């Protein structure tokens, strides 16, 4: 054991103790500050009073989406509109339509030829089909989404207005999020090599327009609402009707809700 020097009054042990305390304190200051920002999540910091075009404030909106299954005629207008609006590469989909055909004995036939982009053809399942319907699908913009939780670089995020988006400059294309999404809403862009997905046409929303899919749906099967808007029609329908979400057992809290959803839909 080392002998403590008389008169110094400051030994190795004291030094180590002080150094450890100091380093710990610094670490707290450096990383604790960051952590506080992260955990606050929705709390607006003073630095971010940025506004979009026309004074658009992301904190004043929260978008919700409603699909009325009974109104979908499976025409694919939404899929084509999405492709044109967002330059979605061929055979990749930010939104798509699935056709469900259920036989009397409970067999379920599901198809989505080219995502419904080219419409649907009569199909012969050879079974006694007792019910059939079209189900439009898109990113559910989950409030509690697994795709954002596991992004290793902070490229996937939930915006203050409730959208799940990808920062294309930060995304490293690892595709963890593609695998994590229980709804198959994401894909790796074949040219940009980053995760790509429905943005709810954010560039349109901030200009006061609706999404391309909603605008081009000829029957009103797709509707967009804003939870924070006064007298919002979609919020009212959701508040007063029997609505359902996809895979509720996963507790992802989808912001996309369905009217007239049947149990066969996955």
């Amino acid at each position: 054991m080392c002998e403590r020097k008389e008169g110094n009054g400051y030994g190795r042990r004291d030094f180590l103790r002080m150094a450890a305390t100091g380093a710990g304190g610094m670490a707290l200051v450096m990383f604790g500050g960051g952590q506080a920002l992260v955990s606050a999540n929705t709390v607006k910091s003073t630095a971010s009073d940025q506004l979009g075009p026309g004074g658009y404030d992301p904190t004043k909106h929260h978008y919700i989406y409603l699909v009325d299954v009974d109104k979908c005629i499976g025409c694919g207008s939404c899929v084509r509109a999405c492709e044109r609006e967002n330059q979605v590469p061929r055979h990749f989909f930010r939104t798509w339509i699935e056709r469900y055909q259920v036989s009397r004995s409970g067999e379920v036939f599901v198809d989505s030829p080219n995502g419904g982009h080219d419409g649907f053809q009569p199909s012969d399942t050879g079974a006694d089909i007792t019910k059939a319907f079209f189900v439009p699908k898109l990113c559910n913009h989950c409030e509690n989404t697994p795709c954002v939780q596991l992004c290793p670089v902070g490229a996937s995020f939930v915006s203050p207005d409730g959208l799940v988006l990808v920062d294309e400059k930060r995304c490293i294309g690892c595709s963890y999020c593609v695998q994590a999404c229980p709804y198959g809403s994401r894909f790796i862009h074949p040219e940009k090599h980053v995760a790509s997905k429905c943005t709810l046409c954010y560039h349109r929303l901030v200009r006061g327009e609706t999404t391309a899919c909603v605008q081009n749906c000829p029957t009103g099967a797709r509707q967009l609402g804003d939870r924070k808007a006064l007298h919002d029609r979609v919020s009212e329908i959701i508040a007063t009707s029997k609505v359902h979400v996809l895979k509720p057992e996963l507790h992802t809290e989808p912001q996309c809700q369905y009217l007239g959803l049947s149990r066969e839909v996955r």
Partner: protein
Amino acid sequence: MEHTKHIWRAAILLVTVLVVLVVGRHFVIPKSFGEMGYYRYDALFEYMGKEMRHGSPNACADCHDEIAAAKASGKHAPVKCEVCHDTLATHVKDGEKYADMRINRSYELCAYCHQKLVGRPALVAQVDLLEHLELSPGQPIPAEACVQCHDAGMIHHPE
């Protein structure tokens, strides 16, 4: 006080490490990261800057008011122009026409909505194309089968 230099060495090392961390952090973490959460807040504003391809719902009526008026009173009123044509951005730039709008005369376009299908709700008129055109299965459907009888006037203003 010969041991004081050990303390100084350690202190200098500690300070160096801290400075490298603080300065390095500044360079590695992008601007606006962490402002609103664990992401780069500027990414949101980059999305906002993207140009719209589809116009506003009533943008076409600015120039084509007669067709728009006829369409508004017909059964195709809920079908936006861009569903059958193309996006406004392919036709108009800075408020001026720069290219012809696409006119799709294919039967496939009509069939997207009007082909009779199991499970298609009766919200729209539906026909079995082969039956309607009196073709036998396997016979090719003429490319412009529908518009040969249902002309643009009828399509813009179906009774």
